[in-house]
């Protein structure tokens, strides 16, 4: 090991008296004393099951399906989330809404959360903002097949995490978009 300058006497003394080590030991002892003797220092630990962290709103937890404020599902079964997902988590089987021609919804919607990497690309891809990430992270199960969530479970997740719901699209902006609405809502063109 080459040195820039020859060692001074103080360096030799430091070496033989383990001075650097003793400085480190002083640091750890300080923490110890402050914690245990003086009680002036708190630990940084969150005692997990008894205390939980406050999560930021952008936390990427379990994914949920949302509804409008008249409790209809937002999801139109367009399969864009299925296409966007990098882990092939989502399976969508779409169908026509029974009784409402040309309205599309997801008849079956499965998300295999055991595969999910919580990247949030599905949330970004959804054109109607039907997907959102909640702050739920406590989802340990005993059987990993219980992690394949179906539509009802995802909607339930949405219901309990997002009590404030949006208005239906056609009531938000009256001219922006017309898809998936019952046509009887709109007046016919006067020709």
């Amino acid at each position, binding site marked *: 090991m080459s040195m820039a300058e020859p060692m001074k006497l103080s360096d030799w003394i430091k070496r033989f008296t383990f001075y650097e*080590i003793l400085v*480190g*030991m002083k640091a*750890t002892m300080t*923490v*110890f004393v402050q*914690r245990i003797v003086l009680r002036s220092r708190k*630990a*940084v630990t969150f005692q997990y*099951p008894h205390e939980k962290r406050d999560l930021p709103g952008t936390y990427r937890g379990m994914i949920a399906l949302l509804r409008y404020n008249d409790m209809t599902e937002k999801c139109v079964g367009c399969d864009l989330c299925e296409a966007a997902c990098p882990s092939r988590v989502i399976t969508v089987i779409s169908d026509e809404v029974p009784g409402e021609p040309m309205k599309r919804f997801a008849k079956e919607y499965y998300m295999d959360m055991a595969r999910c990497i919580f990247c949030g690309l599905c949330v970004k891809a959804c054109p109607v903002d039907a997907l959102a990430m909640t702050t739920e992270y406590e989802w340990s199960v005993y059987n990993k097949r219980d992690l394949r969530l179906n539509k009802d479970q995802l909607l339930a997740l949405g219901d309990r995490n997002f009590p404030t719901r949006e208005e239906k699209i056609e009531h938000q902006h009256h001219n922006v978009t017309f898809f998936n609405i019952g046509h009887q809502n709109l007046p016919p063109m006067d020709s």
Partner: protein
Amino acid sequence: MELMIFAGAALVKIAMVMIVVLLTVAFLTLAERKVLSWMQDRMGPMEVGPYGILQPIADGLKLFFKEDIIPSGANWLLFSLAPILSVVPALIGFAVIPYGPNQEMEIFGVTIKPFVITDINIGILYILAFASIGAYGIILGGWASNNKYSLLGGLRAAAQVISYELNIGLAIIGVIILSGSLSMVKIAEGQAGGFWHWYLFGGLQIVGFVVYVISAVAETNRLPFDLAEAESELVAGWMTEYSGMRFAFFFMAEYANMILVSCIAAVLFLGGYQSPFPHYIIEYLGFPGMKWVEAVVWFTVKVYFFLFLFFWIRATLPRLRYDQLMRFGWKVLLPLALANVLITSIVVYFVRQP
């Protein structure tokens, strides 16, 4: 009949000592985690029992109930033998350590010396001999796992252990010269009368002490010398293929070794059960008959001080690399220990000349 009483008494003493040692080992695991976490702004185990006190019981139960796996291709006999070879020497060493004054007491009509299991006159040598056997456990553990990485890990650890064993041996020669006996009891008795009689202070065995402490840390595979068992080291390390009770034995062996070297340090350098004052405090307070209580307490305090030192060093220092470790042991500590022996013997020769 005498023999039976003697055997019975010995068994009882052994049982008591083993119970204490094993309990200490168990709670030492907890103590290490707690002390370490206190030094690191954390809390350590807090869930099991109030403030995590019952954590060792949980750990023990867990290890007890784990599946007994033997790697395919491994030699079952050697695989099972290795942890035994590790733990038995560690526990056997406690046979010669004096916990209290060398006096006879009468308990239930039997006259025994309760504070040392047996006072053989080659105490230290006995301990060193058995410590060397502990190295076999490591090598066997590495080889019997049928895992090349374990084998390499085992060889490295074993090499480390035997190198620093040598240093331990040389470091305590100064003390032996000063006390003139290999018996632990005699060494402890020779430091009576106050801390200035302790070999560390009065006998000026500072260098020896330092070498001994460092070597003891290396001998027991503790930080900063624990690269053989660090979590991210060597893919495996010799303990990898072990699970359940076998792993528990290795674990116990490590902590038992720790306690053993602390006991030895306390006895050799700090006077063992002797009080730092000329007389025991209890004597000052007027209960000379109870001074054995205080003696045991002083012994315990010194051992715990060393154990705390182990934890403190672990919380502070980073890990040494293997080559740094070996170089340090052979090129620095060994010459220092030899120099210590030389100087001690010269000084003793001249000082003790009538």
